[in-house]
């Protein structure tokens, strides 16, 4: 189980995040840029919605037949000379990879971008075993240098400006300060090249695993996935069980939508197809290839017919870009490897009740569902998780003010069963509160919903059932 802080930390971290206006500005401009690009590529691709439907259908079918597909994938991978390891949880996956690295005498591990290895906390485990692991995706490299976690599943350093990165490189490498992206990228590139040349062990994630052919597909823009999977002698691919798709021909539907929604590109710069390690006569490629297939709570998600749909996720990150909450608090505030709308579903399921408050941290505005390339009905699943929490044995421990507000809402709902009573109480409240109102609003309200007036005024209750038409209300 990943290291997740206590539930109430979210309240503190999100509070700190919203008051960081610099952070909000960076998030706003980066996510707006993503969305603008997406709007452009979508406009010139009329088949987009058909491709979404196809992708949704294929993924849903794959999740329904996951057991058969995984068996097929395993046998095809083995026939290509791969070793396959099914990991029940994060600890098993970590253990396997660390033991393998030790066994091969690995000194320098290079990593292609992979949220799944973030999920299993691989870097920390390798470090504890005395093995140096370097993130080679530029954004991941930057957050690793800062000792941070990615704050976005596609754009790990979205919370940083080019000035922040310039300062980081000056501090870490002693180079002259510059905020020019080209220079900073060139600096990282030359350092990473040396690291690649000395690497003896590579680890990457997987975007799609094709059962029919035993092919792993990695989609990326910088070449780090390709180098991490081909330069070192030993290569380990880590994937969640939900990454498998049945046939090669299914892939095109996903390639049509993934880059468009993720980064607003038609296609990513690199799309690598890996079918086994180096064969006789091949000029390059790893000598040895392992595929770690991770469950870590995913089977339990499949067991629930509503939550299951979340496993359709292809990790494009679009729901983060479009989420009005993510855009204001950023990924770190979620205190989970997977932030944003989809993270609010995945995290409580993979990491347990410490992330259980996340499904509640949503206005259910539905922007995520609108943009999702595989049409996951995210708000509906968030609602389902809320019911499960409220009906469950392990109830969340909310901060006191919030517990009070929730109880207040419950009391209101019980009262509202009796319209006459609730209307009478409404009139009473109106009478009591009337003297405190200014221009139709109250500056402060008592009771369970008092949090409201911390930030805005509350309209004065004016219960009324319609007698005569009165089209215009007096101002205010």
């Amino acid at each position: 189980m990943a290291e997740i802080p206590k539930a109430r930390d979210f309240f503190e971290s999100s509070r700190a995040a919203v008051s960081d206006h610099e952070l909000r500005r960076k998030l706003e401009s980066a996510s707006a840029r993503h969305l603008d690009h997406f709007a452009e590529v979508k406009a010139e691709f009329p088949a987009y919605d058909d491709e979404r439907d196809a992708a949704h259908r294929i993924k849903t079918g794959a999740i329904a037949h996951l057991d058969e597909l995984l068996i097929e994938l395993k046998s095809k991978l083995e026939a290509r000379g791969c070793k396959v390891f099914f990991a029940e949880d994060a600890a098993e996956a970590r253990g396997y990879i660390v033991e393998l690295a030790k066994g091969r005498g690995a000194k320098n591990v290079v990593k292609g971008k992979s949220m799944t290895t973030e999920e299993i906390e691989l870097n920390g485990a390798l470090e504890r075993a005395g093995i140096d692991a370097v993130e080679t995706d530029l954004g991941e490299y930057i957050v690793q240098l800062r000792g941070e976690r990615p704050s976005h599943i596609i754009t790990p350093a979205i919370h940083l400006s080019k000035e922040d990165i310039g300062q980081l490189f000056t501090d870490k490498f002693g180079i002259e300060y510059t905020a020019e992206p080209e220079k900073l990228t060139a600096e990282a590139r030359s350092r990473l090249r040396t690291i690649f040349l000395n690497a003896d062990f590579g680890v990457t994630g997987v975007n799609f695993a094709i059962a029919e052919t035993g092919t792993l597909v990695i989609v990326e823009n910088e070449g780090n996935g390709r180098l991490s999977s081909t330069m070192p002698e030993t290569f380990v691919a880590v994937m969640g069980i939900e990454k498998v798709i049945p046939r090669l021909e299914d892939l095109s539907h996903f390639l049509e939508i993934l880059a468009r929604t993720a980064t607003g590109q038609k296609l990513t710069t690199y799309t690598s197809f890996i079918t086994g390690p180096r064969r006789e006569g091949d000029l390059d490629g790893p000598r040895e290839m392992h595929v770690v297939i991770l469950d870590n709570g995913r089977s339990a998600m499949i067991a629930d017919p509503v939550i299951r749909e979340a496993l359709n996720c292809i990790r494009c990150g679009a729901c983060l870009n479009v989420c009005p909450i993510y855009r204001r608090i950023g990924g770190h505030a979620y205190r989970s490897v997977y932030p944003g709308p989809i993270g609010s579903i995945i995290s409580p399921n993979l990491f347990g009740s410490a992330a259980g408050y996340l499904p509640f941290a949503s206005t259910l505005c539905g922007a995520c569902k609108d943009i999702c390339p595989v049409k996951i009905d995210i708000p509906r699943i968030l609602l389902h998780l809320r019911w499960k929490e409220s009906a469950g044995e392990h109830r969340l421990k909310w901060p006191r003010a919030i517990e009070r507000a929730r109880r207040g809402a419950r009391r209101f709902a019980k009262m509202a069963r009796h319209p006459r009573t609730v209307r009478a109480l409404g009139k009473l409240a109106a009478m009591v509160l009337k003297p405190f109102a200014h221009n139709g609003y109250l500056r402060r309200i008592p009771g369970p919903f008092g949090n409201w007036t911390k930030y805005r005024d509350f309209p004065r209750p004016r219960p009324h059932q319609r007698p005569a038409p009165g089209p215009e209300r007096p101002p205010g």
Partner: protein
Amino acid sequence: MTEVQLFSTCLAEEFFPEVNDAAATVLERLRLKVTPVRGAFCCGQVAFNEGFRDEALDLSRRFLNSVEPGIPIVVPSGSCTSMLKIFYGDLLADDPALSAKAMAIRPWVFELSQFIVNVLKVKYIGARYERAVAYHPSCHLMRELGVRDEPMTLLSAVAGIRIRELRDREECCGFGGMFSVKFPHISASMLEDKLARIRESGAEVVVANDCGCLMQIGGGLSRAGDKIEVRHLAEVLAARQG
């Protein structure tokens, strides 16, 4: 069609009484007999969204027993309409009797602008409103009901109105029901940006189809001491002079 059932919604009944008056006025001008739904106070969305299923079930039963299928049920709220039309399906999945009732009324439930434009096929109601107006589309209205153009269609046909463009208008105002008191700081940060967009639009009045948004935006404007007003779409449509 000669008759409609008008469901006030709890927020309108308690905090925005003029919304129901205006909605009824508009419907009456369209020659409909308006019967208020008096037997129910709330659709149950607050309880439903908070995970309190039993309470939500009770309220849905109340509502379903207070309305009749076969007569349009008009609701001046995109959010409550979504609850009645869409989320009742999930809520009542395990209760065949209630579920059948919900299915029976489902095709008869309409949000106000949806009803006027798509069912009555009316665009011009004879309203006059001489103010600069920015329209804020509420989330459930757009994304659950797919009602995107109807309110603007109606607003554009109001005499004397000056429509102001609201940048990023499809972004949530941060209300979210209980979200606004559970995570008030996040809600307020969303509101802050919404208010900035409203101010830069040059509007004198912000119009929305949901009392939730009006509460949030109106409360924010009031706290800031701003002169910009909030109005429900129904109020603008019912207005006869600036």
